[in-house]
């Protein structure tokens, strides 16, 4: 993994995933390790994402590194019309590693071609957000004690949700059984179902969460956004069908955990928050350890 960019979840192998997860577990036990020892890391946020940026910056600070960068493009020379090419070329001279988020899809891959430095993609539009996927994997492993043969119920916007697509790709390495729960307009795209068929994995599709919730090891909730619907009446009709409420968890397995990439709007009722099966806030804490692991492995500070 040393000096390798992490742009897309498929850039890394199953062995890499497992290495990242075991390294993250070490950081969870002992998070403050001065491995970066003052090294400078650039965090380039061409669009704001407070949670992701702070998680990365917390990871870098815990490793004893320093952060340079910007928090949205209005505070950078992008507003003067500078190309991404020029921005990346210049910043490559200032740091050891680039963490970037950009609204355009493919921007992180492009950046990784421009610079000699490793690039970590912190989200490129609706395309990829691989560190989210790795923290999801870590959260699943930590709560279930394993990654193999789990029942994964994905709920909500499965058509546009990049987190569910990347998680599907990663979990397909671990023989997961998938349950896709979504309105007709937001079904899992064929290319991902085709990937599962080729891999020999089973999946089930349904419009109704109640059908499968009791089978779930993991319930992965996503936001159903109004702007995704061509018909606003259809949205009003379906929006409440994909809201998780506390009483719906009554018959679920003891080991069931509810995950969500956040931000949440209304798709998980706040009544669920106190349920021990709710795991979405702990999930964000895991993100810091996973990002510490990714940064230190890419920079060759852990092997």
């Amino acid at each position, binding site marked *: 993994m040393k000096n390798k960019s992490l742009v897309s979840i498929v850039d890394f192998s199953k062995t890499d995933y497992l290495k990242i997860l075991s390294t993250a577990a070490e950081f969870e036990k002992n998070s403050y390790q001065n491995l970066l020892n003052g090294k400078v890391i650039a965090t380039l946020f061409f669009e704001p994402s407070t949670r992701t940026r702070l998680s990365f910056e917390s990871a870098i600070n815990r490793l004893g590194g320093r952060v340079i960068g910007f928090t949205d493009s209005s505070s950078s020379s992008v507003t003067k019309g500078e*190309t991404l090419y020029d921005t990346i070329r210049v910043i490559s001279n200032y740091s050891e590693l680039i963490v970037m988020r950009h609204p*355009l899809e493919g921007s992180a891959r492009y950046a990784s071609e421009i610079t000699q430095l490793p690039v970590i993609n912190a989200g490129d539009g*609706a395309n990829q957000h691989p560190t989210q996927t790795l923290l999801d994997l870590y959260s699943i492993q930590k709560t279930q004690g394993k990654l193999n043969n789990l029942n994964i119920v994905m709920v909500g916007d499965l058509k546009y949700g990049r987190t569910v697509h990347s998680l599907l790709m990663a979990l397909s390495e671990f023989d997961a059984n998938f349950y896709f729960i979504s309105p007709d307009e937001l079904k899992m795209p064929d290319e991902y179902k085709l990937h599962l068929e080729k891999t020999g994995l089973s999946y089930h599709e349904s419009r109704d969460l109640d059908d499968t919730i009791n089978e779930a090891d993991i319930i992965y909730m996503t936001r159903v956004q109004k702007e995704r619907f061509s018909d606003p009446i259809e949205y009003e009709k379906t929006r409440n069908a994909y809201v998780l409420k506390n009483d719906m968890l009554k018959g679920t397995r003891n080991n069931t955990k509810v995950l969500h990439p956040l931000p949440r709007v209304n798709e998980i009722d706040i009544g669920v928050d106190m349920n021990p099966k709710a795991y979405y806030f702990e999930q964000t804490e895991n993100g810091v350890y996973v990002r510490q692991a990714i940064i230190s492995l890419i920079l060759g500070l852990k092997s």
Partner: protein
Amino acid sequence: MKDKLLEVSAIKDGTVIDHIPADSLFKVISILRLEKNDGMITFGTNLESKKLGKKAIIKLSGIFFKDKDINRIALIAPEAKLNIIRNYNVIEKKVVEVPDEINGIAKCVNPVCITNHEKIPTKFIVVDKRDIALRCIYCEKITDKEHIEII
């Protein structure tokens, strides 16, 4: 077949590209950058073809292509056939093959792909050679045959 070839004058040495869909002729010319070639080139279009309805043909005197270059037209003229001519005789026939990668010819269908916002040559992996589907190496979205736009 031979008569059709003769509708444009015969060449001594060079390449004849036949079975180009008539409406793709000018795209083929552009992809092969023939406008910058100073060899003698004749072309005919809207010729009758049982297979394609209307076809076009290009005759290039003294011009030969590498497979890698000629395969670039496979996206828009998948049925094209090449006759390599030496001393007025066809010494070799070739068909175009869809390559594994397509660089800098097609536009990515995704409006929010970085390649549609900065000056970057596009790059695609051909994920379906029969029905033509291209995956952008940047945004990872699929551009299918119906939506292929030649740059």
